[in-house]
Each structure stands twice: as C-alpha cells, then as structure tokens.
C-alpha cells in the first residue's frame, strides 16, 4: 500500500541539539498511527514537520506521493491540521475559533454555521458557540481545539498528546470522537502520546521514538503486548517482576521472583529474567477457580483506584500485582480494601522484557 505520508531520513537540529535523528516513517492512508515516546523524545517536532509548520534540517517528506518543497508546502498544509498539546486558542468566542479555518477556505456564513453546530455536537459542546473559549475549563478548551481541527475535515489529522492532563470523561470523549471520525470520514490520523493504554486501544500501528530515533515500529499488538526494553525504558509498566528462571520438564519455565512467589511462563529460558503480566490478563475471583491457567495466587486487596469504566486493584500476594476489572464486576464481588481474593493468569500471559 502506498504510504499517505512518508518521512525519509529526517533530521532536525535545534542549534546543537538533534531533536530528530534520521527518522524514516510511513503512515498509511486512513489509519490511526501512534508515535509513542517519553517527553523530549522528539514527538512534537516530528508532528510539526508532518504538519508542515516546521521544516527538517535534512531529509524528505512525501505527502500522498508528492515530495513536499518550498513551492507546494503552503498548499499541502491546507490538507492537514494539528491539535496542539498545550491548548492554543484565539482570544474570542468558541464559534470564531472554530470558524477561523472555514473562513480562510471561503465557506459561506450559512455553511460555517451548520458545520460549527455539527462539530460542537460531535465533541459534546452543543450550544457553546457564544462562550469565550479562554473562559472554558481545560477539558472543554481541548475539545474546542479538536472541534476546530475536525471541522476542516482534512485528509490528515495530527494530534499532539490530545488528552494529556485531562479528566477521564474528557479523555473518553476525545478518544471516541477521534475513532469515530476516522471510521466515518476515512481520514488519516497521527497521534503522539506517552499514554500506552490509549495508544493501544485506539490505534492499529505505532512507532516508538526515543532520543529522536525510531527504535521500534509495528502493530500496536507487537509493540505494546510484548513490551521491549525500549518500551520498558520509559513506560510505567505494571506487574514487572525480576527473578531466576529454570526450565521445567513440560517445556515452560518457573521464575522465582522472591517473597515465595513463583511465576510459570510459557517460555524456555533459564537464568536471570524480567517478566511482565498485563493487569487486564489477570482474572480476579473471590474463590479459587478451576481452569487451565498455570498461575494462581492468593492475596489481599491493598489499594483500589476508580478509573470511570474500570477499577484497578493492587493485590498483595507476596508480591504486589495490579489487576484491572470492570466496575460491574467490582460491585458484584463487593470488594473492599483487605478483601481476600485469588489471582489467576495463564503462563502464556507472562511476557519477557
């Protein structure tokens, strides 16, 4: 498939600092692509180059098969738009903020009115037209920013940490809107984030950017389901255990992670290893369950975090495990701090880092 936007050997220097170091990347048409990386890894610089508001020190950018140069940059820039991490708004009403790009494109007043109304509905800010944008809450301001970008219906939408520091409700509205717009309008979305959970849930392909270099690129599953050293170097992974592994006769390995906890993993590796179990791969129950899963631990809940639709629990079973269950399950099981529970997970859910 021909890439929609392609970066070829892009380097960007800010004085003596190399923000991007020979980055090559292909983003396919109609996909949602994530650029994940810690703060300062070059994500924003990369997006700014893709939005054509910054030019690379060296390298080429191709947009829909066309090499971008000084002559066509301005024209191509109208085919994409970007939502900034730090919400930038014009000091005027919500309506005028959203209408700005439409006015530049010569839309009639009637068309602008209709489009503004529709897009405000999309981001769940119906009736906000006359409100002063800068007087809104942080979450509402970011939704105005998103609406202002979406109303243009550009072929490429760039999102720089669109949900950083926002409340869970706003995060879910933004995530739903982006997914829906991509599904219905078939535009291409590139999102920079350090939120791996978000990267995995709404995107199919991703790249890891570290120190201005792409260190991994592939499907979200490949990158986030089986975390690498690169990912572990910046992501806050939960349920990471280190210990000594020995290979069992059945072909699996048993890893002694101290404190009387031994984890069986579907791998053949002996010696020092670090492993990782995803919180959502652990089944939590009040009583032991009969299953084929090789790992069963008894423990007590020590911490409960409510994350709107899901609940994350920290369970002390010799080692502390983080488990994620739905709110409904949480209520049905009537769990509290100090409740005794059982944790069950498969040997195949244990990944080596």
């Amino acid at each position: 498939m021909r890439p929609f936007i392609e970066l070829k050997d892009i380097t960007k220097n800010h004085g003596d600092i190399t923000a991007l170091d020979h980055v090559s990347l292909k983003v396919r048409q109609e996909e949602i692509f994530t650029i994940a990386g810690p703060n300062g890894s070059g994500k924003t610089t990369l997006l700014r180059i893709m939005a054509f508001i910054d030019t690379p020190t060296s390298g080429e950018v191709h947009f829909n098969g066309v090499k971008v140069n000084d002559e066509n940059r301005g024209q191509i820039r109208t085919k994409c738009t970007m939502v900034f991490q730090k919400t930038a708004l014009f000091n005027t009403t919500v309506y005028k903020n959203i209408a700005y790009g439409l006015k530049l494109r010569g839309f009639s007043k009637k068309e602008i009115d209709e489009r503004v109304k529709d897009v405000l509905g999309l981001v769940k800010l119906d009736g906000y037209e006359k409100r002063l944008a800068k007087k809104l809450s942080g979450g509402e301001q970011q939704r105005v920013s998103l609406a202002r970008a979406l109303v243009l219906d550009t072929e490429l939408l760039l999102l720089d940490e669109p949900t950083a520091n926002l409340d869970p409700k706003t995060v879910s509205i933004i995530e739903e809107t982006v997914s829906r717009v991509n599904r219905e309008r078939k535009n291409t979305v590139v999102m920079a984030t350090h939120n791996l959970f978000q990267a995995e849930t709404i995107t199919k392909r991703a790249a890891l950017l570290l120190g201005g270099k792409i260190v991994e690129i592939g499907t979200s599953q490949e990158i986030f389901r089986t975390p690498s050293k690169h990912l572990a170097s910046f992501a806050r992974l939960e349920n990471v255990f280190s210990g000594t592994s020995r290979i069992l006769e059945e072909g699996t390995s048993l890893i002694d992670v101290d404190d009387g906890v031994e984890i069986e993993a579907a791998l053949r590796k002996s010696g020092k290893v670090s492993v990782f179990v995803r919180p959502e791969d652990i089944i939590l129950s009040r009583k032991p369950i009969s299953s084929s899963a090789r790992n069963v631990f008894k423990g007590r809940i020590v911490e409960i975090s409510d994350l709107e639709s899901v609940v994350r629990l920290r369970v002390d079973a010799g080692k502390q495990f983080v488990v994620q269950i739905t709110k409904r399950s949480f209520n049905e099981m009537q769990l509290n701090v100090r409740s005794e529970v059982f944790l069950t997970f498969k040997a195949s859910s244990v990944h080596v880092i």
Partner: protein
Amino acid sequence: MNSEIIEITLRSIYVSGTATLLSATWSLPLGLAIGLRDFYGKRFVKGVFNAFLGMPTVVLGLILFLLIRHAGPFGFLNLLFTPLAIIVGQAILITPIMVSFTTSAVESIDPEVRDLAKTLGATEIQASLAVLKEAAGGTLLAFIASFNRAITEMGVAYMVGGEILVLTTAIALQRDMANIELLLTLATILLSIVFAINLTINLIQKRRP
C-alpha cells in the same frame, strides 16, 4: 468659541491622526516582524527603538528643518511650513513608540497562535495578521500612545510648521500674547481630546471580542 480655535483644533486632530496612520503603515509591519522573528541583533534593534522613545521633539524638528529647508537636500519638495511637513515629522517622531509597543504586544502572545493559524490553513501573512489580531489590545495602546505623543508635541510643529498652528504651537503663541482666557481654552481642548480618545478606546476594549 471662535472659528479660529475650531480650525486649529480640527487641524491638530487631522495632522496628528494622519501622522499616526502614516506611521502605522511602516511601524506595524516592523513591530510585527521584530516581535515574531528571531534574528541576529534583535535585542540591539529593540534597544535602538527604545532609546528613541525619548527623542527630544525639538531636535527632531531641527533635523527635519535642515533637511527640508529650501537649501536642504529635500528642499525641492517644498514641504517646509506646510501641514504635510508636520505630518511627516510627527510620523517619524512616533515611529519608535508604535514599533516598541507593537513588538511588546506581539511578543506577549503565545507563539503557538501563529503555528495554530498555519495549521488551520493560513498563509504566512494571514498567520501574522492572526497574531496581530490577538495582540489588538497592545496594538490599540500603541495607536493611543502614538497619537497622544503626536498631538501633544510642539518641537516638530514649531520647527517645520511655521505659521501653521496646531494646538500646542497656538498655546505657545497665546502665551506670548498673554491671552490667558484663550490659553486656557486651548489647553482644555487639548486635554479633552487626549482624555476622550483614551476613554473611547477603553470602552471599545471592554466590549471586545
């Protein structure tokens, strides 16, 4: 109020208003460019404009007089002792004010506004105008300060205006004639113009956006 006072008042407003608009044609783009761009020597350039904020009006008037007098290099323009000479002189006088105020106003705007406008499809010029619009409060202040400086200055009007009286030169002339009543009337008019303009601008700003 006699017709001469009205004529002098209207001339003052016309001359200083035109000087302000004339100055804006180069000062606004200059202030915008200095505020938006990073270039070698930017601090020096800003320093120069700041230094000229306190330019003695009579010195500028003298320089202009030497330039446009009949024997001067621009004598062929026949500008001396015309309203246009005062307009040009005042426009030059207020340039540092307008440039400095515009630069500060533009620099106070979030630099992302310009990029934002560009990502929404604006050209370089449209993006710069978007920043200028965001900096409207500061830019308006630049206009007020410039107009006030122009209408209250006397050195330039005296040196290159000759017998063409504006409010300030008329006040000076009446002092010589010891006409206290007329003197106070002219001074009151001058102050009223300055206050009225400030008040109007304040009201406009309150009603934005």
